[in-house]
């Protein structure tokens, strides 16, 4: 299902959708850029939920969920920054600028890259999970800042395309551009859940391996 929606999204975004009146063809990067950051936000929301649940109940499955979602979230955040940079070159004239939204997104990437590094640096698995869970909760606070940054500071980045307060998505963006955008968002979310399910399964197997090894050593 993810594959079919990706194929439809690609075809609609690259062939059927008309070019933007001001930006021309380069606006088609939006069909990657927005779905990628939404997939990243959802991943970090799962990190937040998994981390809170782990700190509360100390169940391994919550930590595995948080760890899996953090890895996938870092992937989608890195892709968002790369897409934004490629989009920024022809529209703003620069690959990168220290704009509030861009800088906060880079900080988000650094926080969760740090989260993953922290986990690999601390040998005691339970301690690593606890420390990472605290970072996973604190790191999530960056997301509302990123979303509101375009309102709070004067930035180069445009305001949200679909998630604007007091406005329906179709009031901000024309239907011929909104339809491929929604298809691509659905495709990326399906892909996210597929990648997450694989990564979660890997986490579970690693946990079982660790338990078996401990049993053998005892």
């Amino acid at each position, binding site marked *: 299902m993810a594959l079919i929606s990706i194929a439809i999204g690609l075809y609609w975004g690259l062939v059927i959708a008309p070019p933007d009146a001001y930006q021309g063809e380069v606006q088609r990067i939006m069909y990657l850029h927005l779905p990628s950051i939404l997939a990243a936000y959802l991943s970090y929301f799962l990190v937040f939920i998994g981390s809170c649940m782990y700190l509360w109940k100390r169940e391994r499955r919550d930590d595995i969920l948080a760890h899996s979602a953090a890895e996938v979230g870092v992937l989608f955040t890195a892709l968002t920054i790369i*897409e934004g940079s*490629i989009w920024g070159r022809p529209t703003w004239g620069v690959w990168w600028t220290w704009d509030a939204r861009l800088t906060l997104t880079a900080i988000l990437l650094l926080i969760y890259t740090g989260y993953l590094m922290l986990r690999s640096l601390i040998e005691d698995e339970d301690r690593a999970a606890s420390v990472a869970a605290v970072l996973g909760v604190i790191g999530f606070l960056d997301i509302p800042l990123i979303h509101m940054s375009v309102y709070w500071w004067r930035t180069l980045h445009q305001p949200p395309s679909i998630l604007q307060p007091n406005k329906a998505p179709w009031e901000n963006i024309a239907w011929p551009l909104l339809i491929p955008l929604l298809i691509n968002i659905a495709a990326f979310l399906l892909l996210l859940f597929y*990648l997450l399910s694989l990564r979660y399964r890997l986490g579970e197997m690693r946990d079982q391996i660790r338990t078996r090894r401990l049993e053998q050593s005892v």
Partner: protein
Amino acid sequence: MEHWSFVALAYGIVWSVLVVYLFSLKSRCKKAQIELSALTSAQASNEHDQT
């Protein structure tokens, strides 16, 4: 046809990275599955030897 090269670059990088990540994830799962099966069978044979 302006800026198609930027569109191609963005789509090329994103889908290449996603495909590479997907295959690396599948490969890591396969390795973990093999290791887990080996540990399970070793544990089973140990228990069998003890009885």
